[in-house]
């Protein structure tokens, strides 16, 4: 064992020159120390006079001692790792660094000793593992976690110096016999009946090849393999000699080792990858490649971390190779329903019958997508890494495209539709510009890509054992149509035809989102209403609900862009009713003041997050929502100042307005909310110009494509609402108003003013009529006498009394024809409590409750409607009769069922009022 230290201590030059046989070892033991010690002594003396005493005394052990110390420290570190004690680990790390200095000095070399490098590698791995394992991280004590973090920093910094060496070490860690490997070796000897000599032989060989090209980082397959692979390689050195049985046996063994303790995940991947090279039949190759892919998925344990990017890429490549083979040999069928024959894959090239192989392409594709998504979730979006990662999207798209084509060829349309959905989900949120950019990027990178492939080809050629050579049949570049819409249409129609319910629902939502993105409001609204998604989305899984919320948000934005204020508000108000937009759109985690989330919940939520590039800009969304609410609410508020029971259109807006009115001093507007509030104050006075200017000064508008036209639309809307507000507020102060005056005041055309005012008259919002010859409005204000006013008050109170009677009776008896209002209120209370669409937000239990609540509320509602039709129906009709409310949203395909939905939405609003 002592010899090992020597060789380790010895610089690499030594290693290169000498094959360390035992005799050699002896030699060095005798000669070497004297030589080197002498030299070192001198230099040490020269540089460091303090230590000279001790050095003098134990001349020979100067080097030894340092090494000994270092080893002790390494041992300490190992112990610390075992108990996950980062504090002491940190200490040891500092210590080892100090020792390193000394050792280097002693050894006079600028190369760090292997022991140190090994320690570093070990540390790095352990750290990566610790970082990936978030659960454990959370459980750590605070001092420990702190140490972990500082350790991370330090190690990163430190390792940079030794990057090259570490990499080298990683490539062939087993160049020396290691004690730690004993376990594995044992296994090896057990499993394989290879005698020791061979082993020796291999290590020899390795040493030689290393000496030959020590700097060649990409020296190909063989190099990167662990010892075991080399054993394999050895066994299959003569590839012709390898038989199917042999390969199969190895394959079975490796697969059996999967998940066993002590099986390195990377190693397994590499072993399998090697095996795939020597596979004897295409079927076998496919079989092995499937295992490679699953093993690659295994590389990353735990749900929260993501698969390393490099592994992901390799995984995609493997999938492509699988597809190549499948395309080349159409008689190979991939299926996961039947357990195939043991020796199915033995059938070779000449076999023409169908060969069944166990596997599921769709599951793989989905997993690949999930890993991609997760990596985007985890990577900090402000780094370059994120951008780099995003580019891999094209890689995935090409894979998905190929798989889909393949599945379509084999006639498995339902599976193809699943894959199509994955593609849809990568495309749906991209506006045309982004889509174009992606398309251009893939086209541009074509040249680069080819280069990359070229460099890959010789590599494969060099692998001597590559048996089943597969031409690249499937295209390696994604093909995109000019217009993302055409692509969407193609994919989506496939899904609608063949997909299952969930796939269809998701595709539909993506479709809606995409249409909305392209400002096709009516199309996407029709899709939404036709699919009845808003009615049963609560029964779907959370990720679909998030997608639904996103689609609604985008639909709202779209409505705003095309100038449909009421529709926009209808879409967005529910999102904003609970104040949990972030959570509903899965764009960041909102902290609730009243409700502490458990770790579990938070983790779940984190897992649901959208990647950054898919975000819908919240500031813009808020601005749009508030502006819509303002435009609707301000005239409504002013019109009904005297009416106690008047309907509130946007509760959220009213609350904000109250808060802002309560402030004693209002400063300059800073955020979106302030801006809108300031605009509201101007609008209430009928001052449309300043209202518009305040809104215009928001800088979120730059996010809009057609900013100018949107602002123009806003200006027109603000003017109109200002006119309405003005008329409501000041009509009592006028006896008549001329049309010209109004057109001048509000900078509107005569036709517009006439139309607006006429509308108000017809709707009996304004008690006035035109005097045509003089072109003026005559107001008829009807003053009630005191008695009449009192009588009105009286009747109002009476009806309130009856209402409460009804409620009381219902509470006692329950049921009956008059239960409707009450039921509805319950429904709202529930909605209010869980925050509108935020029902799912509570995680597991609350979600279930929420669901029950919904279904209860709904059934109650339905029942009430059936029995108390007179009232319920009338109510709904009244509602629908209002030109402005959410009514604009009403009735497309199924007017009846939509009425239901409408009722629900309204009932939400009503909960606010009652």
């Amino acid at each position, binding site marked *: 064992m002592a010899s090992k230290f020597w060789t380790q201590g010895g610089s690499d030059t030594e290693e290169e020159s000498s094959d360390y046989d035992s005799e050699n070892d002896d030699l060095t033991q005798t000669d070497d120390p004297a030589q080197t010690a002498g030299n070192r002594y001198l230099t040490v003396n020269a540089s460091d006079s303090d230590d000279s005493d001790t050095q003098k005394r134990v001349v020979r052990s100067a080097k030894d001692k340092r090494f000994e110390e270092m080893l002790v420290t390494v041992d300490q570190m190992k112990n610390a790792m075992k108990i996950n004690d980062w504090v002491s680990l940190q200490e040891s790390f500092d210590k080892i660094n100090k020792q390193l200095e000394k050792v280097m000095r002693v050894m006079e070399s600028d190369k760090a000793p292997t022991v140190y490098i090994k320690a570093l590698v070990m540390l790095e791995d352990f750290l990566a593992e610790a970082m990936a394992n978030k659960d454990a991280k959370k459980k750590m004590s605070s001092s420990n976690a702190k140490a972990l973090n500082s350790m991370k920093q330090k190690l990163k910094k430190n390792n940079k110096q030794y990057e090259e060496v570490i990499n080298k070490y990683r490539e062939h860690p087993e160049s020396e016999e290691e004690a730690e490997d004993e376990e594995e070796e044992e296994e090896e000897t057990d499993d394989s009946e290879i005698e020791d000599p061979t082993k020796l032989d291999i290590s020899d060989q390795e040493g030689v090849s290393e000496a030959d090209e020590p700097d060649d980082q990409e020296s190909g397959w063989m190099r990167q393999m662990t010892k075991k692979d080399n054993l394999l390689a050895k066994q299959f050195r003569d590839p012709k000699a390898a038989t199917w049985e042999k390969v199969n046996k190895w394959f079975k063994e490796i697969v059996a080792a999967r998940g066993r303790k002590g099986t390195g995940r990377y190693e397994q991947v590499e072993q399998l990858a090697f095996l795939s090279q020597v596979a004897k039949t295409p079927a076998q190759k496919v079989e092995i490649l499937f295992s490679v892919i699953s093993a690659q998925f295994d590389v990353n344990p735990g749900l929260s971390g993501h698969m390393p990017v490099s592994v992901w890429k390799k995984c995609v490549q493997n999938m492509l190779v699988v597809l190549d083979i499948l395309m080349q040999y159409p008689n190979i069928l991939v299926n996961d329903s039947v357990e195939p024959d043991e020796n199915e894959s033995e059938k070779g090239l000449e076999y023409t019958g169908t060969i069944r192989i166990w596997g599921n392409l769709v599951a793989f594709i989905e997993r690949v997508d999930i890993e991609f998504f997760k990596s985007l979730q985890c990577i900090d979006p402000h780094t370059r890494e994120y951008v780099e990662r995003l580019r891999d999207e094209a890689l995935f798209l090409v894979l998905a495209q190929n798989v889909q084509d393949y599945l379509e060829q084999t006639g498995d349309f339902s599976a193809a539709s699943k894959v199509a959905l994955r593609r849809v989900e990568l495309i749906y949120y991209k506006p045309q510009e982004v889509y174009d950019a992606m398309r251009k990027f893939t086209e541009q990178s074509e040249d680069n890509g080819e280069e990359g492939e070229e460099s890959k080809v010789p590599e494969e050629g060099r692998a001597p054992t590559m048996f089943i050579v597969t031409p690249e049949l499937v295209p390696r570049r994604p093909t995109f149509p000019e217009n993302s819409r055409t692509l969407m249409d193609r994919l989506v129609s496939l899904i609608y035809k063949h997909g299952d319910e969930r796939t269809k629902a998701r595709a539909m939502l993506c479709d809606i989102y995409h249409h909305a993105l392209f400002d096709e409001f009516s199309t996407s609204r029709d899709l939404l209403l036709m699919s009845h998604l808003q009615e049963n989305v609560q029964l779907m899984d959370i990720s679909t609900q998030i997608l639904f919320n996103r689609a609604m948000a985008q639909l709202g934005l779209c409505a705003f862009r095309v100038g449909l204020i009421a529709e926009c508000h209808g879409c967005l108000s529910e999102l904003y009713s609970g104040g949990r937009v972030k959570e509903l759109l899965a764009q960041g985690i909102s902290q609730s003041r009243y409700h502490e989330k458990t770790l579990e919940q938070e983790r779940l939520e984190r897992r649901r997050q959208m990647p950054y590039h898919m975000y819908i800009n919240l500031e813009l969304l808020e601005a749009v929502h508030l502006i819509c609410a303002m435009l609707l609410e301000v005239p409504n508020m002013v019109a009904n100042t005297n009416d106690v029971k008047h309907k509130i259109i946007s509760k959220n807006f009213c609350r904000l307005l109250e808060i802002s009115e309560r402030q004693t001093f209002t400063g300059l507007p800073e955020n979106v909310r302030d801006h809108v509030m300031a605009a509201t104050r101007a609008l209430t006075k009928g001052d449309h110009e300043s209202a518009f200017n305040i809104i215009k000064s928001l800088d979120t508008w730059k996010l809009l494509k057609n900013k100018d036209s949107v602002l123009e639309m806003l200006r027109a809307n603000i003017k109109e609402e200002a006119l309405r507000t003005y008329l409501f507020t000041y009509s009592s102060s006028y006896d008549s108003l001329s049309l010209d005056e109004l057109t001048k005041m509000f900078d509107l055309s005569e036709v517009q003013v006439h139309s607006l005012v006429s509308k108000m008259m017809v709707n009996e919002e304004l008690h006035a009529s035109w005097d045509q010859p003089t072109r003026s409005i005559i107001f008829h204000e009807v003053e009630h006498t005191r008695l009449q006013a009192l009588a009105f008050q009286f009747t109002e109170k009476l009806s309130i009394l*009856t209402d409460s009677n009804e409620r009381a009776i219902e509470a006692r008896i329950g049921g009956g024809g008059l239960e409707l209002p009450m039921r509805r209120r319950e429904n709202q209370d529930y909605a209010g409590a869980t925050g509108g669409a935020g029902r799912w937000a509570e995680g597991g239990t609350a979600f279930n409750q929420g669901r029950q609540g919904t279904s209860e509320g709904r059934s109650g509602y339905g029942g009430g409607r059936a029995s108390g039709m007179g009232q319920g129906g009338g109510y709904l009709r009244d509602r629908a009769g209002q030109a402005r409310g959410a009514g604009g949203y009403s009735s497309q395909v199924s007017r009846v069922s939509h009425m239901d939905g409408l009722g629900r939405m309204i009932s939400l609003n009503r909960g606010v009022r009652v």
Partner: protein
Amino acid sequence: MAQYDLTPRIAPNLDRHLVFPLLEFLQERQLYPDEEILNSKIELLSKTNMVDYAMDIHKSLYHTEDVPQDMVERRAEVVARLKSLEEAALPLVTFLQNPNSVQELRADKHYNLQMLNDRYQIGPQQIEALYQYAKFQFECGNYSGAADYLYQYRALCTNSERSLSALWGKLAAEILMQNWDAALEELNRLKEIINSKNFASPLNQLQSRIWLMHWTLFIFFNNDNGRTQIIDLFNEDKYLNTIQTSAPHLLRYLSTAFIVNKRRRTQFKEFIKVIQQEQHSYKDPITEFLACVFVNYDFDGAQKKMKECEEVILSDPFLGKRVEERGISTVPFRDEFLENARLFIFETYCRIHRRIEMGVVVEKLNLDHEEAERWVVSLIRGSKLDAKIDLDSGTILMEPNHPNVYEQLIDHTKTLSGRTYKLVSQVMEHAQTLATR
């Protein structure tokens, strides 16, 4: 006016034979070149068995006496097939033509089948042959024969799918023979089946509804009572939804029906909303007219649209039906439409005005002064309008109609007693159930 022609949108939803009347109309109106229409007629006929007719058209189109060979061949083929079908159906046809034997049939289908089988050796094959024969007759243009056979077939048929298509065939035949009353009967029968039947897919049902609606256009615009019925049918939720999703062009007919029909005002407001919503998917002068009057209150616009409407009506095969009376051809529908549209404009105009100059009325209504005055007076006299004419200043003065305070009060309290009664009865009921327990 070709831009407003709906034939291309309607035709796919009609039976081949039903398209003929439309093409005839277009030819008469000369919206398109004659050749085009003749060509499309031949195209249309190529799939039917009316080969003789196709030959005639061919002759007139190319001004020759020669007929293409394939037509001649096809004619022979058709005749042969007709013969063979006739033979196959012969036993049953002879049976049915014999009034004595027909009397043996009873209301019970199974009995009938049994009886036919036992006594006349008429089995399912013969019945099936009857269907084929009827179908072939229809395709040859012999509608009355087809209608008869189909009627008989329905009485004997047990297959519901077949029965349904027989019904469609019967309806088409009746329409083509212009038996509007009989057609209406068939229509109602069909409607019931469509509503009740559990179709294989909702899509199928939707398609049937669309067809039904298109086919009914023939009936409703030729039947006296049709305008009310069209509103009743089209405005049913299911059918309105169908219109909105798949056939928005039908909105033209529904709007027209609403305009000329004074009785369905309650549903009218709802309908205005539908029009507003569907503006993006379909609009023509008629729907735009409604939007002008009831959504935007743009009376000048409405007036312009009214003129366009007139042309649309004239060029529409269903609306612009001509009536020849003593050599003068009139389009009765147009006059009716214009009158009602005028009334609409004026009514709405009055609602938001207190004083209107007579001149404006004249201009808005497209009438001359005298006529306008007479028109207004008749309105006032018919107590449709609460107004007075001030000849001095040449204006019409509206009486302000404020809601009466007392009426309002009564309205407010009206429902209270009913609700209270209900409450009381509930309490009593509850008490009783408690007592009996």
